[in-house]
């Protein structure tokens, strides 16, 4: 692995960590509940990006498994919460 690739990976990792911090602040100050749920989904996607970059930098085979499970759990959680928000207050059996 040459120096240019190493530098690119480290710079991309730093940028993604900075983006996660910015998203946490923006989600904290979100204006409604769908906005905050969207921010949480965005933080999950950026976490997957950080884990993929770590798996490239450190060459540990475990990291990509953690990225897969975080992506799957995040998608399931976001879908369930969005369905809950869409049908809140409806009688049982409603969409």
């Amino acid at each position, binding site marked *: 692995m*040459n120096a240019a690739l190493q530098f690119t990976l480290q710079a991309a990792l730093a*940028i993604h960590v900075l983006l996660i911090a910015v998203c946490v602040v923006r989600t904290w100050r979100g204006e409604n509940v769908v906005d905050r*749920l969207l921010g949480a989904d965005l933080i999950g*996607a*950026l976490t997957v990006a950080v884990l993929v970059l770590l798996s*490239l930098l450190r060459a540990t085979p475990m990291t990509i498994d953690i990225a897969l499970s975080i992506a799957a759990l995040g*998608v399931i959680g976001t879908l369930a919460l969005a369905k809950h928000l869409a049908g809140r207050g409806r009688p049982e059996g409603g969409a």
Partner: protein
Amino acid sequence: MTALLQGLAIVAILVGTGFSVVAVAGYIRLPDVYCRLHAAGKVGVFGVTLLLVASVALGAQQPGKAVLLLLFLVLAGPATSHALASAAYRMGLGPRAARRNDLPPPPPR
């Protein structure tokens, strides 16, 4: 060949990081929920996908898992975006910056 693949990986990492930066800037700056959904959907579908393309081009140890994660992200990103937009519509959050709105009001709960 190795140098070519490494160059491809560097370009993919730079473009994917650029997509993520633009998406987060859109999530901060855009006016309402629907515009922010448009911006934030780009992280999963373009940002992480290009990083995974770089990972496969560099010869990662388990390329099958990277391809699996890529396919999963491409399938799941539009589904979550659609679920969030549907939730916002049913909660009665209207678009803020639209000149005209052709959607009927959401059905009563």
